[in-house]
């Protein structure tokens, strides 16, 4: 029964878990390790699988917790946007001055989001980057839906204020 459930409900979402881990960690190898660990952990707790209403959210929660542990234990640093930008193909940087300016602005936004407390950052990432519904976020973070909305409001407000203070405006 558990094996069938695992194959039908967990295996199909493993690519989603991998994407989620990659977004959190920013590293291919680490994302792979964390996803593998998450799958094994889910399987180890197979007794719980039948009791859960949202198995996917539970898997996401396990992946997230493992990724956060990894970040904490190794003082992980996600490569900043400037580094990412330097890896972009040359065709994206037709105008070097405009590209530098854009990178600078993106870097400021990245810093503003990264400086948020973990709970705000997670909510903002899950909503604004992964496009999840409030209920899905609530299930993944194991919090109330109203709390999701409150945290999202506070996160966006904090980012907005930081960008206003730094006078970061549209390009």
């Amino acid at each position, binding site marked *: 029964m*558990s*094996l069938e459930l*695992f194959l039908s409900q967990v*295996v199909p979402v*493993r*690519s989603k878990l*991998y*994407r989620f881990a*990659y*977004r959190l960690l920013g590293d*291919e190898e680490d*994302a*792979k390790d964390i*996803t*593998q660990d998450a*799958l*094994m952990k889910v*399987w*180890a707790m*197979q007794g719980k699988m039948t009791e859960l209403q949202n198995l996917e959210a539970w898997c996401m929660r396990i992946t997230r917790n493992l990724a956060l542990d990894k970040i904490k234990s190794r003082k992980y640093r996600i490569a900043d*946007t400037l580094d990412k930008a330097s890896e972009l193909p040359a065709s994206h940087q037709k105008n070097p001055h405009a590209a530098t300016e854009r990178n600078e*602005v*993106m870097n*400021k*936004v*990245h810093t503003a*989001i990264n400086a948020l407390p973990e709970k705000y950052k997670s909510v903002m990432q899950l*909503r*604004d*980057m*992964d*496009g999840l*519904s409030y209920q899905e976020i609530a299930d993944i973070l194991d919090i109330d839906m109203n709390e999701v*909305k*409150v*945290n*999202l*409001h*506070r996160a*966006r*407000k904090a*980012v*907005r204020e930081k*960008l*206003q203070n730094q006078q*970061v*405006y*549209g*390009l």
Partner: protein
Amino acid sequence: MDYKSISALLEKYWDGESTLAEEAALKAFFSEPHPDMPEDLLEAAPLFQYLEEESAIRVPAEPEWDMSFLEETTVKTPPVVKMYPVKNWMKYAAIVLMAAGVGYGLKQHHASRQIAMEQLKEEEEARKAFIETKRALALLSRNLNKGTEKMQALSYFNTATEKLSVKD
């Protein structure tokens, strides 16, 4: 472009009340250049451009997963143990004996408790009778003492009368 409706959507976004469709509309709006954008929209542009870039970030190809743990730890169904009720007659006999023993013990306990209660009742009645007798004897003694005092006074009087009659 209707900037007013975009501004209204943006306000909902800042308040954390926007729907996914509204957020998609905002992302679509900010993904294109708008030269005469009002200031409230201009301040949100970098954030939406960043979110667009992050959403579009290319995740590396999915690796090969090692699913061998499924085979290693698949829960083996425990062997079915057949029950033979007749074979276990000693168990059932022991259970019946134990139940009879417990029943007998309880009955004995109940009986001894009843005897103790009766004894207590008898003791209480004896104690009450003793108190009553004691009270009656005390009353008798008090009255007897009164009579003795009177008799003593009479005795003094007699003695005095006898002495006077002797002198005469």
